[in-house]
């Protein structure tokens, strides 16, 4: 079996074991959080008979282990149960809200990499000169304030004082786009509606920027630090002494090896957006999974909590696999195995 395939299979098996562990953990934690989910859902006026009936329907009157067996059986059939929050199957909620958050994360990730890495490269190549200082100030600002602060700042600047961007939802009301993938940018293109695509793009810019700002700061600082370190390596100094063009040295000899440690952090930053997007989603009325996750916790919607946490955990684990594969692909020492 090729080493790459073996590595992927190994990672997948580990992922399944971790997911199983997470499911037990979150299943128990959700039930320990104070509050009776059924009473919260039915309200204070519901009779005890109503409460008991719903509790029995949700198997909450059974021992914890039995409840978990029911849960596992249903999950294996693709059923996370009904949400007490939305009164719909949790799987339907996830299917509806996850694409919105993934789309936001992907655009934010592109902005994070597209802006953060060039800034880091610029800072490293102009070390201790004014562009480096400017990048340092910008990145410090980026990492020192959380995403929701940037959300409000961006909203004030680009929607209140200079109203050029919309601030709520994923697309303007005047467009009716049939849902195919759940990714609005993709669906507008599939519908062949470029005006709608432009509108959806305008809607995603501010929330994606707000979500990306912290990551931009982190990736720029990391890239700069790694590149500065690599510039000091003998092979980079040798290339400089041979008089190779600065751009070639940066691109071929310095940036590529510097990218490997940055990539790991960027990958984890990207995955953590799923959990951290809640406030940005709230500020921009973005109907995503993070916002849903917090709402289900507040009303102690057991099925909603477990479903959301499992999806977030799975996303983290998948991102981890992707990052490992990228590092494996970029780093010849791993790729070439024992020959290094």
């Amino acid at each position, binding site marked *: 079996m090729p080493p790459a395939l073996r590595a992927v299979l190994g990672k997948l098996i580990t992922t399944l074991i971790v997911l199983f562990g997470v499911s037990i953990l979150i299943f128990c934690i959700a039930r320990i959080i104070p509050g009776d989910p059924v009473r919260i859902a039915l309200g204070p006026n519901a*009779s005890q008979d109503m409460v008991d009936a719903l509790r029995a329907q949700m198997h909450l009157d059974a021992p914890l282990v039995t409840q978990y067996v029911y849960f596992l059986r249903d999950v294996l059939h693709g059923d996370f149960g009904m949400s007490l929050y939305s009164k719909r199957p949790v799987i339907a909620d996830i299917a509806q809200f996850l694409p919105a958050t993934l789309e936001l994360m992907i655009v934010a990730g592109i902005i994070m990499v597209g802006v953060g890495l060039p800034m880091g490269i610029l800072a490293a190549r102009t070390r201790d000169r004014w562009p480096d200082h400017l990048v340092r100030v910008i990145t410090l600002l980026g990492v020192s304030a959380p995403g929701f602060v940037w959300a409000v700042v961006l909203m004030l600047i680009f929607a209140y004082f200079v109203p050029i961007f919309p601030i*709520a939802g994923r697309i303007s009301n005047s467009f009716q786009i049939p849902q195919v993938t759940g990714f609005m940018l993709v669906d507008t293109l599939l519908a062949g509606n470029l005006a709608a695509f432009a*509108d959806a793009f305008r809607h995603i810019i501010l929330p994606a920027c707000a979500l990306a700002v912290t990551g931009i700061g982190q990736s720029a600082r990391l890239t700069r630090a790694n590149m500065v370190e690599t510039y000091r390596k003998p092979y980079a100094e040798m290339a400089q002494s041979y008089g190779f063009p600065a751009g070639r040295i940066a691109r071929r000899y310095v940036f590529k090896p510097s990218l490997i440690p940055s990539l790991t952090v960027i990958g984890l930053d990207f995955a953590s957006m799923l959990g951290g997007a809640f406030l940005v989603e709230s500020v921009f009325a973005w109907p995503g999974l993070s*916002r849903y996750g917090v709402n289900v916790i507040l009303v102690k919607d057991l099925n909603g909590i477990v479903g959301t946490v499992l999806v977030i955990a799975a996303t983290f684990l998948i991102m981890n696999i992707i990052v490992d594969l990228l590092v494996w692909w970029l780093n010849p020492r791993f790729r070439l195995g024992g020959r290094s």
Partner: protein
Amino acid sequence: MAPEFSKRLGAALLAATCLTTTLAAAQPALAHGVLRLDESAPGDIDPATGNDNADTILSINLYDALVAPKQGGTGYVPLLARSWSTEDGLTYTVDLRDDVTFLSGNPMTAEDVVFSLDRMKALGQGVSYLFDKVESAKAVDAHTVQFTLSSKFAPFVAALVRLPIFDKKTVMDHLEPGDTQMGDWGTKWLSQHSAGTGAYSVVSHNPQEETVMQRNPDYFLGFDEAAPDTVRLRYSLEPATVRTLIAQGEHDISSQWLPPEVMSALAKGGAQLLSEPAAGAFYIKFNTRKPPLDDANCRLALANAFDYASALKLVAVSKDISQGTAPTGLIPKGLMGADDESHTLKQDMAKAKEYLSQCKYTPSDYTLDISWIGEVPLEERFALLLQANFTQLGFKAEIRKMPWALFASQVTSPETTPMISQVLNTTATGDPDALLYNMYHSSAAGTWASPEWLKDDQVDSLLDEGRTETDPEKRDAIYHQLNDRLMALAPSINMYDAQEVFAGSTRISAPALSDPEKKFPLSPFGFTFRLIDVKD
């Protein structure tokens, strides 16, 4: 910096700027006849399972009930019913209109009413508790329904306000497998579609984002000329977002949950302030099982020491409009049994000290535990006010923040219920029974509506009488007696009679939310969309 690199960077920045400017310029045209408002998520479009404010707004616009609260007055008027009657208070006969059709085109008949009640009771969610006393309903003929009650229940007609009528045939066509003989009672289908006679129908629904509705052109009561063609009910917008949207002209009516200072800022920016009586009150609730609050004199001392005027200032939105009005007793104004404005409650420190002298406990020996719900930041201000007031009597007072779920769990036992908690209680039907029974009857203790844990035979007896007495005048007298008894026991403080306030754009005209002569006595009926005019 290498020149090649600078050029590339410059080109990239230029391209990004051009793209952003082009996209920013591509503003879509505003749709005409659209009303945009917001409420707390989630929205539930199935009125048999929904219970919250958003759910009720959806229910009254997508469905109709047999009766409705009377606009510009008190009491109830027929809606899908023509009339109702009862001989003995145990059997109610309701005559239905024969000119109403559902969205599907099916005529509305007595069978649909029976089905709607059976569905509500079988699902056992939402406001089904209002129909606990209804044993059965039967279709006497196509347009006559007979309800049989297990015992006399005077608020029955009021409860009918919350019984929306479903199109039985359409729902039956969309049953999914379930635990009962009726499968899932159509819950899956009805979570995305409507099957009512209402003025609006569902176009799309996302419980966390928005519900889009459009006019039902065949609605039997017709529309105001400028009533909205389309309504977009958005969910859980942040105050900063609502403020920006209204300022941009992209939103029409805010929810009542906007902080007073944001409403005030919007009003200063030109927005209109709309309001509606909440048929309820914001209560400070004493756990009557814990010392020193198990002594009525101690509770009366605290009630008299409370600074009602400062509480009202905390919820004032403008000079003229506030989220609360001065209370006159424990039954809010507008409900049966409420005292008139000559009984307006005021802080009275002399009286407070007099009651305190009769209390069997020494204040300095006790620390009052004042809780506030983390999800409602305004409650922290009230907690600080309570602390300031109660320490004047010599009590020590500690403030404790707790999440709603924890509070809902703690109130299930008197030992864990906080000594002092804060709850906004409103009535679902406009009848005092729907508010008071679940707060003060000893059999209803142990929920977030009743952290008082009151156990008083006279209160129980008056509440039971209020349920069974069908003569309105006698009922009013019973609830007046109840109010007097409660004021003597002081299980709670009515901080203020609640009023829902909303910020609205100047693009809309909503007499049911602005003209006292046209307001409904029950919230959120002011959000009957067909009565709101939208100027384009």
